[in-house]
Structures are given as structure tokens and as C-alpha cells.
């Protein structure tokens, strides 16, 4: 026998020790290498998403190492349909672990160009390389020129600091 399920309503998620650099973009995977010189900007949200913008006006999206650790083993990733138009803050997919499902939200408005189909057969890429091979979607950013002025987008340093302050 076993007692009432509280687990499912809980995000049981305190990650003890993290190295500073773990939420940085992987330099060897597509979100970085898509442009020969790397992305033009990498931004984070306080909901633990990242965005890697490139000079052609598209951006890769994914979840941070912190979020991937907190979720635990990814068992399924619900991917967005191509050409879907989404506003900033709208859910574009979800990441499931054994215990829970968490939606992932668009950091900025845009249109889905492609989803990372490798996640269908290898959802664990979310855990092994969340800021690289575990990217979830690539979007065409609606207003690529106003990225720096957009509210709610953090630099890596600001994001890491916000994690520390939360502790």
C-alpha cells in the first residue's frame, strides 16, 4: 500500500549544485553552428527557456539545463506543427517526464519553421544536451530587430543571477 499522490501536483525540483556555465549554448550543435559565426544573440526567460537568434531572422528554442535537470528524464516531447503562428508566451510544445508534463512557451512571437524531429526517437536529448542537440524548434522571429528591447529576455549572466536569487 502506498499513500495519496501528492507527487503529481508537485514540481519536486531543487537542484543542488550547478556549474555557472551549464546554461550556456553548446558550441558544437546546430543552434550554434547554424550560422558559421554562431548566433547573433542568445537570450533566456525566467521560465527557463532559451532562444538562439541568427542573422537570417530565425531562432532556435529550447529549455535550459536547469529546467532539464529539474524535470528529470524526458520520456516524450510534444513538438509543434510547422507554420504555426504563435505569440510570445503561448505554448508551442511540452516536455514530459515519468511524473509530469510541462508546457514550453514561446519567448518571442513568430512562426514555427521546423521542429527537432530527433526528439521523437530520442527525447533524452533534452537531458543530455538541452542547449544543443536537445533544441525543440526553430522559428521565424516576427520582429527580429527589436529583440534587445523586448521585455522579459535575459542575458546568460542575468539568468544565472536570477537562479541564485531564487535559492
Amino acid at each position: 500500500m502506498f499513500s495519496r499522490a501528492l507527487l503529481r501536483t508537485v514540481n519536486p525540483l531543487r537542484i543542488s549544485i550547478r556549474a555557472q556555465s551549464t546554461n550556456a549554448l553548446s558550441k558544437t550543435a546546430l543552434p550554434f553552428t547554424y550560422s558559421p559565426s554562431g548566433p547573433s544573440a542568445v537570450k533566456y526567460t525566467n521560465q527557463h527557456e532559451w532562444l538562439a537568434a541568427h542573422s537570417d531572422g530565425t531562432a532556435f528554442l529550447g529549455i535550459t539545463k536547469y529546467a532539464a535537470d529539474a524535470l528529470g528524464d524526458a520520456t516524450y516531447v510534444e513538438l509543434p506543427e510547422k507554420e504555426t503562428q504563435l505569440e510570445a508566451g503561448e505554448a508551442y510544445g511540452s516536455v514530459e517526464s515519468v511524473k509530469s508534463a510541462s508546457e514550453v512557451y514561446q519567448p518571442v512571437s513568430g512562426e514555427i519553421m521546423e521542429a527537432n524531429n530527433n526528439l521523437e526517437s530520442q527525447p533524452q536529448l533534452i537531458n543530455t544536451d538541452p542547449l544543443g542537440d536537445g533544441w525543440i524548434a526553430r522559428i521565424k522571429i516576427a520582429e527580429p530587430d527589436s529583440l534587445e528591447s523586448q521585455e522579459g529576455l535575459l542575458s546568460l549572466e542575468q539568468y544565472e543571477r536570477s537562479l541564485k536569487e531564487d535559492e
Partner: protein
Amino acid sequence: MIRSIRFNSTQTGLKKTALHDLHVELGGNMVPFAGYSMPVVYKGQSHIESHKWTRSHAGLFDVSHMLQSTLQGKGAINLLHKVTPTDFQQRSPGVGTLSVLLNPEGGIVDDTLITKQSTHDFYIVTNAACAENDSQFLLSELQSVTEAKWTPIRNRSLLALQGPDAHRVLKPLLAWDQSLTDLYFGHRRTYKLFNGTYIDVARSGYTGEDGFEISIPNESASDFVRSLLDNQLAKPIGLAARDSLRLEAGLCLYGNELNESITPVEAALSWVISKNRRNITEGVKFNGYEKIMAQLNNKTHRDLRVGYKYQTKGPAARTGSKIFLPDGKTEVGHVTSGSASPSLDNLNIGQGRVLKPHNKRGSNLLVQVRNKLLPIELVKMPFIPSHYYKG
């Protein structure tokens, strides 16, 4: 993506088990559970790794939050025969069984493990989350029974050591003349440790694996756990894996599969209703007897607990997800527990309640997850073979 990423683990007023400090030392991620601060996973082992370790080696769980108690006296059997549908008269001393506490309407107040220690002495384990409710229920039922005393045990910890290597981990810590080979599934006995400490060991658990539930004085618990974990075959395992293990084993979780409005027949637990407790003409009838016997004899119940497997990949159905006929319109039930199954390569499985006659094994139904309808097949439980030690 995660609106509130971490649980408030500094929440005050949580009770701690005698092993709390050791959990923290071992890297346990402590969360509130049934009023206790309990480890959900341990550092360095993911949920799935913890799950698979238990299935392949030995997992050690602190289940001290569960309520241990004794029921003693000449009236003890009368009380048990009123509040459970299980026979305890003919049961041999030293043998326990899963059962359920029944309210007057035949609904399940809690699920429980009850062991007959001797003719007038029973050892009971009930759920932590139900402790207050169970206590009120038992104390009220005791008013109609003479010569029975119910006593919660507060000074002992409870551990579950589960998995195919569980006996290899426990055996070396017992005194030289103590043997586990004739302790069969459901049996419970006092053992002496190498250092002279006495522990009570039941061959039971809630994972579907061979294993033990061990009751030990609080002051000896921490040292004993360290000794068990000195063995490379054993690792501490948290509540996350405990839940996925019990789901694969087809076992019920109170609050999900069981509640006060569900009878044991509806919960597909008719086996807890002993043969000689049915069709009673004289003697004690259990609570809800008329309703439960009508369900057993005339199949008057409307729905039943079932198990299902997904037929495709997809997001897991969770508690409350609706179940439909293949037409996608006719609702015939809902999910009570659901998740990916680590032992089945993360295939989605679950339990639910489905209206008759759609509850039959092999039925193809649909489950709704957000805006998707996903095909499921009703299957026999457990989802993976059990490995109980029956000698």
C-alpha cells in the same frame, strides 16, 4: 516553461522521520509528502535510473511516514472482521495480507497490510496521508467492540528493501543463525542482527519485486540503513520511483485508485474478500456487506478498475484524463494513474475506471490528453511479471 520551478522545501510544520538527516546527507531532494519531509529522488540517480535499479538490484525506501500500529485483545478479530472483508481467524500466526478498511457503505477508508502475530495480536500498516482519518474511523468502530485495544507505534521506523538482490543485502547483516529462505511472501518474523538489535521483517513490499518491509527501533534505524547501503547492490530510492514501480506492479494508490466511494469489488480487489467471509448467516458481517455481496453475486456495480497500455507514442494520460469509446464521443471512464513505464521502454501505461461492459481485456478505447485522442488497449495487470518469493 516551469512556472514555479521548485517546491517550497523550507515549508514549516513538516514532520521528519528518524532518517531525515541521513536522507539529506545522501543527497535526497526533500519534498512535502503526507505531512512529512520525504526524499523524492537522490542526487546522482534520475527517477528512471532509480526505478531500474530497484528492478535489477535492490532499492531501499524510507516508508516510516506510514502508520504502524497494533490491535490487541480478545475482541481484535471481531473488530477486524467488522472493518475488513478478510478472514483473520484461520490465518496462521506470522502471516499477513493486504486488505482494506471499509466504511458502513462498503467504501474503502484505506488500504492496509495486516499481520496476525498471535491469536489476539495483530500488526497493521496504514497510509500516512490517511492516518488521521483511519484513527478516527478505528476509534469509532472500537466503541462497539469489547476487549480490543488499538495502539499506534511511534518509536519505530519502517524501511522497504525491494528488488531481486534484496535478500543478498539483508542476509549478511543478520546474526549467523538467522535464515531468510523459509520466510515466504506475506510472512513476518522477528530477526536478530549481527549487533544484537532485533528487527521485525515482513516479506512484502509494494513494487512487485521480492523484498522486505523492516520495522526497527528509531534509535537503530540510521546505523542499519548505513550498513544496508554499504552493500554495492543497494541504493536509496525516493518516492518518485516508488510510485512508478507500484503502477507497473498494478497496485493501487489510495486517493487515486481507491477512495471512500469505491468498494473492493469496483477496485478489482475482490480477492481481499475471503471465501469464508461471504454468504455469512451468523457471526460478524463486514461493513457494507449487503452492497458488496450484491456486487459479487449479481454484478450490480457499474464500473471496474482496469489497466491500459498505449498503442502509439504520445503524451501520457494523467489522473482525470477521460476515456472514450473508439467513436471519440462516448465517455466510458477516466484515468486514475498514468505515466511512462520505465520497464517497458517508456511506453505509456495506466490504471483507470471503465464502465461495464467496456472494461474487458483487449478492448480498444481512446484516452484524451489535452486536445488529442490517443488509442489504448485494456490489458491484464501487473504490467510486468511479479517476483514474489513464494518458495
